[in-house]
C-alpha cells in the first residue's frame, strides 16, 4: 500500500551567518508511522525541526502538508497547519493546572467566559483516551517530568492531530516512564498520527521507529526502513567514515603515540555517577596520556567530564587525585587540583564575550590568584601576546573583543586561558567543533604536544578519526553508560569503535 505523505519537505535550505545549516534536505513523513530523525551535532536536525515548527523561516525549498504547499511563519501557524511539537524541556506552564495546560489559548467558553467545568470534563476525557491516571485540576508541577511530557503530548494531539514532533522527549525519563511514553506513541500511531521522533538512545529508536532519516553536515544522508539498517551502519552513516581523506587533511598519517612514561594515574574515578545524567563509571587518566571519550551526542560524554571538574555534583563514587581521595565540590576545587575544563559551549559556558582577548586569557589564572593579587598589566600583555603567538590567534590584537572572533579563534582563546594555569589534567569537550579545518589540525597537534610534555588530557569528540588519532585509550559511551574502554594500540579502527557504540558492548 503506497500512501501519500502527510508532510513532505523538498530541497529545504537554511543559512545562518557563515554556516549553511540545511542544504537541500528532503524529508517525508507518512500518516501512522513513527519516524526517527538522526544526526550528530551540526547535522541540521534541530534546524529542520525549527523550520517545521516555524521558529526559523526557511531560506529555500518547500513544505507540503497534506498535499498543500504551506508557508510556516511561526509556532502558532505551525499548530494551525497541524504540526505540533513537544520539546525535551517541557514547554508548558508549571503553575497552571493540567486541564489549563491542555486547553490554554482555546479554552471552552460560555457567554464569553471560560467554562471551567466543561474544560475539566474534556481534559479528563482526553487524558483517559491515553489511559493516564491524572487529576486534571492539579497544578502541572505536582507531576513528574514524564507525566508533564505526556500532558504536552495530549495538548499537541488535541490541538492538531496530523503531525506530532517529539524532540528528545526521553532524555530525562527513566525506563518505566519511557515505556509509558511509547505506549502512548503507539496508540497515537494507530490512530493515524504521524510522529517524528528525535532521541539519542539507539535502543529506543529501534524499539519504536518504523523508518528513519539520517542527516549529516546539513545534508540528507538517506532515508531507511529501521528493519533494513542495522545499528553499526546507522552509526557510521551518522558519523561518516571518510577517514583517509581527513587524515590527509591533518597532514599525513596518524601520529605515533608513545606510551605515557608513568604508570600511576593522575586521576582515578570510581563508580562516579549522577542521577539522570550519567551512570556509574570508572576512569583512570595518567599524566602524559590522552584518553578519548567517544559516543554519540547525548551519550553522557559531557556529563561524565563535568563530574570530574566539579561542575555538577556527583551522587556517588569517588575521585582520587595522585592517589588521595578528593571531594571536588566546585570548579574552584578542581582548578586548585590542577584540572582545567574547556566546555563545548564556548559562548555560554566559556568566554565572556564583551571582555577582550587578553582579559579572557588571564581570567582563570586571575581567579585562582584572587582579586587582591592582580597580574600586572605587563604580565598580562606578555602572557596574552605569547599565547596569541603560540596558538596563532587572529586577529593578533589582545585588546580585540572576544565576541568578534571566529569560532576557531575563540576556541584557541579558551585553550590559552587554561594552558596558562599550567593544568595537570586538561579536559577538552568538543574543542574542534564548528571550526575550520586548519584550526582543527592545529588544535589536534597542540593536544598531542601537551601530552608529550606530560599533561593528562581527556579528549571528547564526536569525530572518531580525531579521537583515534590523538588518544592512547578510548572510553566509549552509549545511552549514558561507559560501555567499554579500548586500548588504541594501532589495531583499533573506527569501525570497531562504531560497532561498540552501536552494540553497547566491546567488540
Amino acid at each position, binding site marked *: 500500500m503506497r500512501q501519500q505523505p502527510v508532510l513532505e519537505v523538498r530541497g529545504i535550505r537554511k543559512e545562518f*551567518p557563515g554556516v549553511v545549516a540545511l542544504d537541500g534536505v528532503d524529508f517525508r513523513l507518512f500518516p501512522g508511522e513513527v519516524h526517527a530523525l538522526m544526526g550528530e551535532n551540526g547535522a541540521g536536525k534541530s534546524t529542520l525541526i525549527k523550520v517545521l515548527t516555524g521558529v526559523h523561516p526557511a531560506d529555500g525549498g518547500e513544505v507540503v502538508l497534506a498535499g498543500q504547499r504551506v508557508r510556516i511563519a511561526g509556532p502558532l501557524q505551525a499548530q494551525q497547519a497541524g504540526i505540533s511539537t513537544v520539546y525535551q524541556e517541557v514547554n508548558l506552564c508549571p503553575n497552571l493546572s493540567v486541564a489549563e495546560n491542555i486547553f490554554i489559548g482555546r479554552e471552552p467558553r460560555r457567554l464569553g467566559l471560560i467554562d471551567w467545568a466543561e474544560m475539566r470534563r474534556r481534559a479528563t476525557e482526553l487524558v483517559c483516551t491515553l489511559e493516564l491516571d491524572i487529576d486534571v485540576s492539579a497544578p502541572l508541577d505536582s507531576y513528574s517530568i514524564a507525566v508533564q511530557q505526556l500532558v504536552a503530548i495530549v495538548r499537541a494531539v488535541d490541538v492538531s492531530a496530523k503531525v506530532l514532533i517529539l524532540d528528545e522527549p526521553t532524555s530525562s525519563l527513566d525506563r518505566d516512564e519511557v515505556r509509558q511514553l511509547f505506549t502512548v506513541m503507539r496508540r497515537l500511531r494507530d490512530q493515524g498520527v504521524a510522529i517524528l521522533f528525535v532521541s539519542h538512545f539507539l535502543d529506543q529508536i529501534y524499539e519504536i521507529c518504523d523508518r528513519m532519516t539520517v542527516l549529516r553536515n546539513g545534508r540528507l544522508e538517506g532515508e531507511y526502513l529501521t528493519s533494513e539498517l542495522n545499528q553499526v551502519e546507522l552509526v557510521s552513516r551518522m558519523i561518516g567514515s571518510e577517514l583517509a581523506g581527513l587524515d590527509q587533511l591533518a597532514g599525513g598519517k596518524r601520529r605515533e603515540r608513545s606510551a605515557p612514561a608513568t604508570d600511576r594515574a593522575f586521576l582515578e574515578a570510581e563508580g562516579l555517577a549522577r542521577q539522570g545524567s550519567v551512570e556509574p563509571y570508572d576512569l583512570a587518566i595518567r599524566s602524559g596520556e590522552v584518553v578519548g571519550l567517544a559516543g554519540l551526542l547525548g551519550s553522557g560524554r559531557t556529563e561524565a567530564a563535568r563530574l570530574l*571538574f566539579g*561542575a555538577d555534583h556527583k551522587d556517588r563514587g569517588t575521585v582520587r587525585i595522585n592517589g588521595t581521595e578528593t571531594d571536588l565540590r*566546585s*570548579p*574552584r576545587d578542581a*582548578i*586548585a587540583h590542577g584540572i582545567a*575544563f574547556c*566546555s563545548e559551549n564556548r559562548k*555560554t*559556558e*566559556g*568566554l*565572556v*564575550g*564583551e*571582555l*577582550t582577548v587578553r*582579559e579572557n586569557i*588571564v*581570567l*582563570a589564572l*586571575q*581567579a*585562582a*590568584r*584572587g*582579586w*587582591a*593579587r*592582580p*597580574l600586572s598589566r605587563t604580565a598580562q600583555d606578555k602572557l596574552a601576546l605569547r599565547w596569541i603567538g603560540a596558538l596563532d590567534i*587572529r*586577529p*593578533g*590584537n589582545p*585588546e*580585540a*573583543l572576544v*565576541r*568578534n572572533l571566529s569560532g576557531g579563534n575563540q576556541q584557541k582563546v579558551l585553550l590559552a*586561558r587554561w594552558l596558562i594555569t599550567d593544568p595537570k589534567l586538561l579536559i577538552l569537550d568538543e574543542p574542534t567543533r564548528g571550526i575550520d579545518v586548519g584550526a582543527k589540525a592545529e588544535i589536534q597537534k597542540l593536544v598531542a604536544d601537551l601530552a608529550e610534555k606530560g599533561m593528562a588530557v581527556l579528549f571528547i569528540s564526536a569525530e572518531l578519526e580525531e579521537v583515534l588519532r590523538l588518544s592512547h585509550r578510548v572510553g566509549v559511551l552509549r545511552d549514558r553508560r561507559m560501555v567499554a574502554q579500548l586500548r588504541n594500540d594501532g589495531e583499533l579502527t573506527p569501525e570497531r569503535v562504531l560497532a561498540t557504540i552501536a552494540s553497547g558492548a566491546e567488540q
Partner: protein
Amino acid sequence: MTTAPTTPGARAVTRYRLFWPAAVLAVLLLANLAFTPDFFAVHLKDGHLYGSTIDILHFGAPLILVSLGMTLVIATGGIDLSVGSTVAIAGALACLHISEAADPASLGTVLGAVGIALGTAVLLGLANGVLVARVGVQPIIATLILMVAGRGVAQLITDGQIITITSEPYKLIGGGYWLAMPFAILLSGLVALLTALLTRSTALGLLLESVGGNPVASRLVGIRAMRLVGLVYVFSALCAALAGLMVSSNVSAADGNNAGLWIELDAILAVVIGGTSLNGGRFSIGGTVLGALIIQTLSTTVYTIGIPPETTLVFKAFVVITVCLIQSPNFRAKLARRGAGRRAGVRPSPATTTNREVGA
C-alpha cells in the same frame, strides 16, 4: 571586510565610550553660557572658591558617591534600590550621635559619628548581599525591602524630627572648605579615585565584569561570585552612607524623611548614562562620574533658566528612555536593519553595531 579589522585598543574604546557622556556634559555646560554669561567664572573669596561650576561639583558630590557604589552593583548584573534609605539612616545616626554628645564640636565625637554611620552601612549592605548572593532573591526585590523599611528606620532614629546640630568638624564633610575647595568635592573625588584604583589596579574590576558578563562561565573559571556580589552591596551601602554624612553635614541637620529621597533613581540614571549596561558586565567609573555630573548640571540648568525645578523629571524621563533604547539590542537591530537596507549589500558586522551603539 575580509582583512582582520584593525580594532583600536580597548583604552581607545573606553575613551570613545566616554566621549558621548562628555560631549553631552559639554553641551549642557555651554547651553548655560547663553543664559548666564559668567557661568564659567570662578572667584576666590575669603580663600574659598565660588562659581556655578563649583556649585555643580559641590551639589553633585553625594550623587557621585552613591553612583560609584551603584556602578559596581550594576556591573554584577544587580541593582541597589536601598541606597536612598541608607543615605537617610547614615545621616540620622551621625546627627543623633553628635546631638547627644557632651561636646558636639570635638573631633572625637565626629569621628565616632562617622564610625557609627559607616559601621551600620556595612551591616545594611551585608543584609542586601546575603539576600541576593546567598538566598538568591532577585536584586531589585531584595533591596526593595530595605528601601521601604529604611525610611521608617531613619525616622525612628530622628524620632520624626529634623535633628539640627552645630559641629564645626562635622560641617566640614559636606559644607566646609579645604585648600579653597569645598571638602565634599575633594572627598567624592577621592572616593572616585579610590574606586577606580581598587577595581582597576587589582583584579576586582575584571572579576566583577566577568561575573556580570557571563555568570555561568565565571563559575566554571573558578571565580567566587558569591563573595564578590556580597562585597559590592557592602561597598554600595558604604558609598551611600558617606553621601548621607555629606548631605546631613551640608545642612547641619538630619531629615529622615527627605534625605536622599529618589537618589537611587538618579544614581541608576547616572550609571546608565555613563555607559554601564543594566545587564551587567563592562563598567566605567569615569563614565559614572560624568553621568552624575550631567544629572546635576541638568538640575542646575533648569533652575537657572527659571523653569520650575521639578520639571527636571521630564527631561530625566527622556534621557532614561533614550539611553535604554540605545542600549537595547532589539532597538539596535531594528536600526541596523534599516541602515543596512539603505546601504544595500553592507551586512552589519558585530563591530559596526558596536560603533553604532555609541553613535546612535
